[in-house]
């Protein structure tokens, strides 16, 4: 298996600034995206992405292409960091944790509607059990193969399919009103 990141990782580990920049450009948006979907909190998601890259820099000098692709390993690190944060949240039971703060700036109605829908979808995702959420984040949003996603979550492909099915069914039920709004046309902007 050829890892498309192997050379970049090797060079970044040796201190090549351009390779490090290319790795960040290629993977940072995905790391932030998956963490946002897991945590439903932009600031925390950025902290997770930064932590992922600290580990990347630590591992890069001794990284050897093996069974798992580098991107798969990065996703696994990100998901595990998110699990840790979700566990800490449960322990602290902070009522504000994971709540997106509304942007106070005035928005055009279409933009406002789009943000409302996004907030509802992300709220419904955040209400899913975390493993279902992780499965949907990886397969639907990051478009990872079933094999890679199962590898990241350290489960079988059958178990992944079960998580995806249950997650999608729950989302369909939770988002019935958004579906009506989205499919029936935009309305109700302030």
């Amino acid at each position, binding site marked *: 298996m050829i890892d498309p990141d192997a050379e970049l990782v090797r060079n970044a580990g040796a201190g090549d600034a351009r390779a490090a920049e290319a790795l*960040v450009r290629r993977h940072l948006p995905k790391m932030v*995206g998956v963490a946002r979907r897991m945590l439903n909190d932009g600031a925390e998601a*950025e902290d997770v992405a930064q932590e992922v*890259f600290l580990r990347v820099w630590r591992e890069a000098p001794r990284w050897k292409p093996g069974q798992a692709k580098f991107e798969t390993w990065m996703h696994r690190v990100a998901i595990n960091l998110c699990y840790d944060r979700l566990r800490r949240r449960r322990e602290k039971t902070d009522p504000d944790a994971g709540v997106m703060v509304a942007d106070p700036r005035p928005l055009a109605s279409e933009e406002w509607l789009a943000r409302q829908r996004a907030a509802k*979808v992300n709220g419904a995702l955040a209400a899913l059990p975390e493993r279902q959420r992780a499965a949907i984040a990886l397969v639907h949003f990051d478009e990872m193969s079933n094999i890679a996603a199962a590898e990241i979550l350290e489960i079988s492909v059958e178990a992944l399919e079960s998580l995806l*099915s249950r997650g*999608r*069914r729950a989302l369909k039920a939770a988002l019935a009103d958004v*579906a009506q709004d989205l499919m029936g046309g935009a309305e109700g902007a302030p």
Partner: protein
Amino acid sequence: MDRQRFAELLDAYGADFRRWPAGVRASASAFVAEDAEAATLVADAHELDLLLDAGRHEAPVSPDLTARILASAPRAQPPAFDRRAMFALAACAVFGVLLGYGGGLLAPIPSEDDTYFTMAFEAPMAFEDEG
């Protein structure tokens, strides 16, 4: 592929066959083409895909985060040539010290013939004593 397996895969991966396992994509497309009910199921799953895609509306990654991450990236070590040059310089210094020390040990012991030099300074004192 039968309808039950098709429905299971649709439930899990949604309506976009690019998300399906690579090995079943072709048979899934063929199944939809020949089964009218399958097409309805796909349309239903597509609606949920669109809903989920509405969740992609989110802020871009902040440039500040990118800068912080890049600032923590590994720095290049001095090139190997510099390290060799420094080693050679250190070796030269050690060699120089050893050469100086060894040269001192190997230098000839002062000859007794040098006594005339000592006497030359002592002679005036002798004259003073006589006077």
